[in-house]
């Protein structure tokens, strides 16, 4: 967790430093009216969710749009696609009162499609590096799969989710429409997993997003 924060901070700082050397005033040259992002998303499961799938997963994408309302205040949306998965070798499930035991390799994965309304505040939106804080509120569609041999046991759920996020928009240059996005968020959901001998509730995760942004004047 600490490593992730250090890497994220270093990335944002270095990006800002590099830009500052190119353009001393660090000014974008225009004040953006909106921007759209497309980022590669890596998920780190937490708590009960981590017991279900312990692996971090880079298999995910996120799209978002932000529309400036006043100064740095902006509102928008986010839609993501994410999958976390893990293979567990030789897990044994038992039904003691029936004398049954089953040992098998099993594949677990959860794929999720969060869709959220976002309110954000960008510090210095007209600058080359614009850090921001945001809060996403919305829903999460999740499918939890447990695959053993030819059996695919799964459950689907629609639930509420909340995502506070910190990040930075790093423009590629003066009057350039394109920039980079680096963000880190914590997501809390009311989603849960209720498959055989596995119960997890209020699924939580951390997400690291790295992507590009198209900035509209």
């Amino acid at each position, binding site marked *: 967790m600490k490593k992730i924060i250090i890497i994220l901070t270093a990335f944002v700082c270095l990006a800002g430093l590099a830009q500052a050397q190119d353009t001393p005033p660090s000014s974008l040259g225009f004040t953006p009216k909106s921007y759209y992002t497309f980022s*590669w998303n890596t998920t780190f499961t937490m708590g009960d969710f981590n017991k279900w799938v312990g692996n971090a997963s880079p298999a995910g994408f996120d799209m978002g749009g932000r529309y400036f309302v006043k100064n740095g205040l902006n509102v928008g949306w986010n839609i993501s696609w994410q999958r976390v998965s893990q293979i567990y070798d030789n897990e044994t499930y038992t039904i003691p009162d029936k004398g049954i035991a089953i*040992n*098998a390799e099993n594949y677990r994965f959860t794929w999720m499609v969060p869709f959220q309304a976002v309110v954000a505040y960008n510090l210095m939106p007209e600058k080359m590096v614009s850090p921001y804080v945001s809060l996403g509120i919305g829903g999460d569609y999740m499918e939890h799969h447990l695959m053993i*041999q030819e059996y695919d046991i799964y459950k689907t759920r629609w639930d509420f989710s909340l995502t506070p996020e910190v990040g930075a928009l790093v423009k590629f240059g003066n009057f350039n429409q394109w920039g980079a996005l680096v963000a880190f968020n914590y997501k809390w959901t009311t989603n849960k997993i209720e498959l055989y001998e596995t119960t997890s509730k209020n699924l939580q995760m951390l997400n690291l997003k790295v*992507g590009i942004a198209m900035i509209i004047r």
Partner: protein
Amino acid sequence: MKTKLGFLILGLGLVFTISCTKYPPESDRLLEDLAVMTQYDTKAVFTDYKSYYIYDTITKISDAGASTINTATSSPVIQAIVKNMNARGFEQHTNVTDKVDMRIRVVYYQNTTVYTYSYGWYGGYYPYYPYYPVYYSSYTTGLADIELADMTTANIVNNQVPILWSAGIRGLLTGSHSTSEITGSIDQAFIQTPQLTRNK
């Protein structure tokens, strides 16, 4: 330059994402994954049983009928069962005519699944036939079933023999596994049934 780099990172991310989200298809899982399912009679008192006899052949039952599996294939399975039974304090008898408390038989049920696939697109109109050729393929898998019969209460006249313990191993004897994997799965069947023992 930075824009290109941004797109490159994103592109690599896409490739990585696509490559790391695949699971083996059902046919591979059935062939390569061994699933060990056991069930014992919860009312049985295994310390009351002492001797057993195990049939040294494995019968294969498939669509083609019944046959006997060759010794090279069946021998490691039989030996692994004997090793585990003896380690749990049961006494093996090797004469089929001996009066024993339990008899063990292994039967292998082989199943061949034929499936179709097509690389084509389906038409937008009824009856939705694929435009491109449909390919046929198949995989063969099966279940090795180990049954431990209670001969002390068996009613041979009426063909009623209670089963004290059974172990079904999916994926065994498909030719996809090493001998150690095969014997390991037999060991696992015993490991997950600690009740099956005279050693108290």
